[in-house]
């Protein structure tokens, strides 16, 4: 949960993981991947309350990242280099809403002419059917059991 003061200016404080800091300062050329994509770009965020521990009045010091499990009351620095994968996350939605769907068909019609279908080759035969119990012409002899 958060508290927004009534002042005109609102500050948001972000804490970076060790990996985030490495990306920020391009440590050993780590910031950009082989495709040239900026790994420091924020692509996901969570609305869950992972950065607050109500058991302490202390604020996080610079460089500290909270305990994402929420199970360690006195622990503020637990994820030195951790890729968070199992919490609800939201990806910035760039899905277009103004779209046009199409097919690769001329006039959106697939015309299948029976005359264009070749005759089956002599070598192609469907597999022999599997015998299924209950389908055969079984008979029951009512006098067969003593």
């Amino acid at each position, binding site marked *: 949960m958060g508290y927004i003061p009534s002042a005109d200016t609102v500050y948001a404080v972000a804490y970076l993981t060790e990996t985030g800091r490495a990306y920020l300062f391009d440590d050993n050329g780590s910031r950009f991947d082989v495709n040239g994509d900026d790994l420091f770009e924020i692509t996901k965020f969570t609305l869950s309350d992972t950065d607050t521990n109500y058991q302490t009045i202390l604020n996080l010091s610079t460089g500290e990242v909270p305990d994402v499990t929420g199970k360690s009351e006195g622990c503020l620095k637990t994820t030195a280099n951790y890729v968070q994968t199992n919490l609800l996350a939201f990806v910035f939605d760039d899905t277009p809403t103004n779209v046009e769907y199409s097919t690769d068909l001329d006039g959106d019609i697939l015309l299948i002419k029976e005359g264009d279908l070749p005759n089956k*080759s002599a070598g192609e035969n469907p597999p022999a*059917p599997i015998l299924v119990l209950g389908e055969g012409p079984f008979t029951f002899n009512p006098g067969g059991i003593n």
Partner: protein
Amino acid sequence: MATANQNPENIGFPMAQVVNFTTTNLSNGDPFVEPHTVSGPSGSFNVPVSAINIGNNKIVIPLTSNTSTGANFLKLHLPQPNSSTFYVTFCVKNRAMQDGYYDYTTGIPSDYRTDLRTFTRDGSGLIPSGGATYVKTLVFQVIGLDTNVTSAAVQYMVKFSAVFAGAGTGGSFPGVAGSFLA
């Protein structure tokens, strides 16, 4: 152990007929990569089509009223997850196959051709003396799975055509498959 059919992509044309779908982002004109989902089929003028769902994303349509083992069907391969491809193959009901239907790969047997012509002709009346081409239409709608803009759904059709010779020219009468002309 049941046998798997060949992937329709490997069967190839004409025994696997294919439709590919695309999405264009009209805000910038760029293609938007996404899988697609198909609904249908219906017949022309929304006439219902007898169809049977089999397995995941596959539908078979009986060519005649016979739906037992050995009967002939059309198989519609709807786009699989992460796919934008639709296939039509020609199959026969066969319990040895994993999905219950064997896809022909080299061609169709004569009984299948007869059933397909009957299906295409769809109970039409006497063939004119000059012969006639009959067309059976299946109608589908497709949208993108991620964008999901139903108002932009595009309709496409799969049409089957067959040519019949006319009566009096060595041709056919109702219920009888005519000779092939073209």
